Structure formats: C-alpha cells, structure tokens
C-alpha cells in the first residue's frame, strides 16, 4: 500500500512537470529542453531557504518559483532570437550550464554529495511528514495546476499561444507582439517546473544533481510527446505511463536495472512509431 502511495506521488509530480512542458511544446510550439534545470532551481533554492532561514516550506517554494520566473525571463531574452531546432539547442545549453553549476558549485549545493535531511512541509499546524498527507497535498496542488492550465488555454491568451505555434510570423501581422507572449509562457512553465522540483525535494528529503540533468529533460520531452501534445490530459497520461512502465516491466520479470533501460527503449520505440503513424501522440491535439 505504501508503495502504491509512493507511485501515485511520483505520477503527480511528473504530471506537473509534464503539464508545464506541454504548455511550451504542445501549445506554443517551443521545443524546450531545460525543464529539469528549472525543477532543480526550484529544488535547490527551496532547500537553501529552508536550511538557512526561518522560512517555512510554502513561503520558500513561492520565492523559489519567483527566482525561476526571473531566470526564465532572462533566458527567454536570449531564446527568443531562435526558433525550432536552434531554440532547442540553446535550451540544452542552458540546461547543461545549470547542471554544471549544481554539480560543481559545491559551496552552495554540496555537489555530488547532495543535500539530505530536507524537511517535509508544515502548514497552519498540519504536518505532511506522513506519505498519505503528502499525497493529499500534491494531489491538491496538481489539480490546481491542471485547472489553472485549463483556464489559461481556454482563454484568448491560450488561443494566441496556439496561433504562435501554428504560424508566428502571421499572428504578428495581426497585431500581436509575440515576444511578450513567449516570455510570459516561458516564465509560467519555469515556475511550475520549480514547484514540482521543490515538492520532489521535500518528498524524497534528499536531492542531488543527477536528478536534474539533461537526461531528465529529454525524458520529459519524450513523455509529453508520447502522451499527446496540445491536450490537457496528454501529459498526465504520459507521466502515469512513465512512472508505471518500469513497474510493469519488473512485474513481467526483468531485473530492476534492466527495467529502467527497458523503459527507455520502449519509450524510444514508441516515439519513433508515433512520429511515423500518429504524430499527435496518444490523445494529443497538435501534430508536430
């Protein structure tokens, strides 16, 4: 039972990350490869604030989301000059630079040793140390994120994002300064990734750099594309499959180390087949 709770929490955390990446790829057409970096920024900033100030978990998370937002805006100023594959490449650059900082700015992050002993959140006397309480917390947060994104996409703002995705040069002619829209959505998505990262840090009570590497960003791109771009449910489905697939493989008899690799292989094959026969993913609205 405890293990099932653990899996559900992971699904919810990855779902938050996947939903935010879907905002960028599926709704705005920006192939972004630095989600893990922003999750890490959220995680490390929150942990830093928790350990060196009197701040509680929630104020710390909010501040780290703001930090992520500022960094995303600065990054956006550079990224906005590029599109498609070059956009992706520069975002990879940011991801690698940030990963290197996590690993080697040992004074701040303790590098490969990681930071243990991260506290679970408390709010108004409620303590989230038990996994069940934490699950409820994350479920509420994930639902709020889902509803927020639903509102965003259903608004005229959301429609503009889709127009940018489909034909940025054309939508400009009709009076939209797409620059600001892209900066805004980049900033929002970064904040959500930071939120997921901070929650992850608090759940596992330990963080170390590899969790926030390029590899994870690429994995996230795979699951968002697989689940379905440009749909609300797609990233959630992708996240669930991503978390549950190694479990299913272990069940079938593969040893744990191989199971993780098999998950990768299955995702890789699935991506290829999808791009060949169903580029919108499982339940997606948008074809690359």
């Amino acid at each position, binding site marked *: 039972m405890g293990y099932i709770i653990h899996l559900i929490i992971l699904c919810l955390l990855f779902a938050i990350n996947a939903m935010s990446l879907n905002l960028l790829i599926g709704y705005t057409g920006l192939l972004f490869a630095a989600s893990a970096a922003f999750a890490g920024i959220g995680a490390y900033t929150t942990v830093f604030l928790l350990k060196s100030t009197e701040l509680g978990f929630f104020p710390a998370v909010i501040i780290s989301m703001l930090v992520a937002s500022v960094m995303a805006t600065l990054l956006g100023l550079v990224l906005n000059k590029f599109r498609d594959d070059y956009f992706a490449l520069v975002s990879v650059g940011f991801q690698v630079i940030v990963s290197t900082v996590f690993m080697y700015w040992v004074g701040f992050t303790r590098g490969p040793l990681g930071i243990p002993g991260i506290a679970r959140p408390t709010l108004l006397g409620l303590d989230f140390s038990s996994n069940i309480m934490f699950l409820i917390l994350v479920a509420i947060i994930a639902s709020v994120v889902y509803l927020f994104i639903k509102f965003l996409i259903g608004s005229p703002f959301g429609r503009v994002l889709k127009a940018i995705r489909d*034909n940025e040069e054309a939508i400009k002619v009709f009076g939209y300064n*797409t620059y600001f829209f892209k900066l805004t959505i980049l900033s929002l998505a970064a904040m959500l990734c930071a939120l997921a990262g901070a929650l992850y840090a608090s759940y596992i009570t330990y963080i170390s750099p590899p969790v926030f590497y390029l590899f994870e960003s690429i994995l996230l791109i795979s699951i968002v594309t697989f689940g379905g771009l440009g749909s609300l449910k797609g990233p959630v489905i992708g996240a669930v499959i991503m978390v549950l697939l190694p479990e299913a493989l272990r069940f079938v008899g593969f040893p744990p180390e191989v199971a993780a690799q098999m998950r990768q292989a299955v995702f890789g094959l699935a991506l290829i087949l999808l791009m060949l026969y169903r580029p919108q993913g499982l339940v997606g609205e948008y074809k690359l």
Partner: protein
Amino acid sequence: MNALTIKNLSKHFDGVRAVDDLSLSFEKGRVTALVGPNGSGKTTLMHLLSGVTPFDSGEVVVGTTAFSHIAPYDISSLGITRTFQSVQLFEQISVLDNILVVLTERSVWASLFERHSKFHTEKAKGVLEFVGLWEKRSEKVEGLSYGQRKLLEIARVLAMNCEIILFDEPFAGLFPEMVKRVRDAISHMREAGKTIVFIEHSMQLIRELSDYVYVLDAGKLLAEGAPAHVLGERKVIAAYLGE
C-alpha cells in the same frame, strides 16, 4: 488625400535589388492594382509595407506619419492588414478560432481576462457567413480545401476592419464560384470606403476592380495610370513578354 505613401523605398537581397528606390502613393478609398512580371518586386513591396520584411532605406507614410522602419505587430494599429500569396493561416486550430484570434485583446494581461466572448463570436459569425464558412467553424484549417483557405483569409481581413487592406494574389488558383465570392468581398470593402491594394495577374480582374494601376518591373515603377491606358502600353506588354 493619400492613405499610404512610400518614398524612395529600397530593399535588396544578396545584391539583388528587389525594390529599387520606389515612390508610390495610394489614394484613400481607391482600389489600386500592383502589376508586373514575376520577380518585379510586388510581393516584396507588400512584405515591406506590412513589416514582414524590413526595408533598407526610404520611408513609409501612413496618413501623415512617416516611418523609417515598421514592425509587423504595429501595422494593425496603423489600420493596415493583409492577405498572403501562400495563404498563412493557423492550421491546427479551428476556422472559428482563426477569426476569434484576430478579434481578441492584443496585450498579454488583457488577453488572459477578456470577457467579451459573446460579442466576438457574433462578429466572427458575421464574417464567416459572408464568405460561406460558418458551417465549417469547428473544423481544423488543415482539413479545408485551397479555395476555402483563401476565403478564410478574406474573412480574417474583414474581421480586422482596417482602413487599408493589402491583398497578395487573392484570386490565384480559385474556381469561378470562389472568384465571385472574393470579388464580392473586395467590392463590399470598396463600398465601405476602404483603401485597397491588390496584386493580380488577370487583366480582366484588373480592369473590373481597380481604379488605378501601378506596373512594376525589376523593383522600379514602369508605368502607372487608369487600367484601360496602362494595360495597353507597349512597354508594359514588352515587360511581361520579354521577361
């Protein structure tokens, strides 16, 4: 009174002068045709006027204000809108969304909290019914035929309700019934007093629709005047055939 004037406008690509020191004026309320052989600079001129391509030198005067450079997202506030030769729509959203997106608020903040959806949908219905695409409003654009896409672009400029409209080959590749619908749309706008500039190759359509014609060749002005005169001029015919 000129709605739009260009003064000594130039643009070159890799050494080729696409638009070469061009000066023209477009009178308010008039329908002007831009004519000329392929490569004469007509489409480039429209890109320059709509900010899609930046120009190297010269000025564009809208009303009484002169601009030495134009950004694409500024032109609608100047009252300019356009269609595209290669039909630039938003392929993976619905027909209705393609119109709604040009009706809603332009700023980030306002677009998040806009509350006029009923009003906008009414307007969208109006223009879509005019071009006969209201029944297809929930379909994604990628499923439309070529003629329907061109009509959707027309509906879009109608929805923009700008004073100056640039059409880049609005009739190209259309069946006769579609040609009639586009013609009706342009006449409708002309009756509303709009200033229209359109690129066209068909002599008949030019004679029927335009009040004035500019003939371009290799980025320069070759001839100008009322359609009947200009289209019969020797040098104009030579430009088309000699090229």
